[in-house]
């Protein structure tokens, strides 16, 4: 599984990478803002995206709306300090599949990733 991490903090991306490695995912793409993420998406097709809200140049909510104009499928988890209910609703309306509030611990992030991916494959 290929995962695109979009966060302006490299420290956060590194922590996310560590969590992903622990659950067996090492094929990672990175972007520091929405513009960079759109550039990555021109040539790459991730199976999952983790997207921060507050970033320079283009924020996460704008990125998600742009992605969802043409791509309804790729699962997106918003991972942000924005925790107010209105913000979560806004993100869901924009098309996120799941929501992780920073600060997060390793277990909660791993769990949300598992949850998001397993919802896509209806178990038979």
């Amino acid at each position: 599984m290929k995962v695109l991490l979009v966060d302006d903090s490299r420290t956060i991306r590194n922590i996310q990478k560590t969590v992903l490695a622990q659950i067996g995912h090492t094929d990672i793409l990175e972007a520091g803002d929405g513009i960079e993420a759109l550039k990555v998406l021109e040539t790459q097709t991730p199976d999952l995206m983790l997207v921060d809200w507050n970033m320079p140049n283009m924020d996460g909510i704008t990125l998600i709306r742009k992605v969802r104009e043409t791509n309804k499928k790729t699962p997106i988890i918003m991972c942000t300090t924005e925790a107010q209910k209105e913000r979560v609703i806004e993100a869901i309306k924009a098309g996120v599949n799941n929501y992780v509030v920073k600060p997060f611990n390793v277990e909660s992030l791993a769990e949300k990733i598992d949850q998001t991916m397993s919802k896509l494959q209806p178990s038979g």
Partner: protein
Amino acid sequence: MDVRLINPFVMSVKRVFETMVHVKMTVGKPYIKPENGNSADVSGIIGFSGDLAGCVVISFSHDVACKAASQFAGIEIDEKHPDFADAIGELANMVAGNAKKEFTDVNIRISLPSVIIGNSFTVSGSKSAPRIVIPCQCELGELFVEVAMEPSGSSETNSTQANQAVGV
């Protein structure tokens, strides 16, 4: 400044440091920052705008800042490390964002983080908005969370407050 605005930051700094830096934080009694109070070596700053305007500043000594950045990132980080400012800025971002969640009836936006690295500098407050200092103690040492927040439209509070605070 309304002291009820302080509690969200007390809870938030505890939550952020416990979850992301893996240290237990003891918070002392908040006080109004004296005119020439607390010098710092490293500060992470987030501005607030919207219904409430102001800023939150997290200040450390060099030593505590490096230790906190290292425990947060999970790798050894000194001040020359390219991710040092990033780590301090993101800690400030999480403290601000998490505190914001407690202000349920108001609309507030937070700025991107700024980080100042120096030697015993003072982040001065504006006269119109007194700064409340929350002293924090953990096994890494002490750090200070300073909060200045006022309803928008009150004198001299606006979205540029974070910039004024650092004198740029």
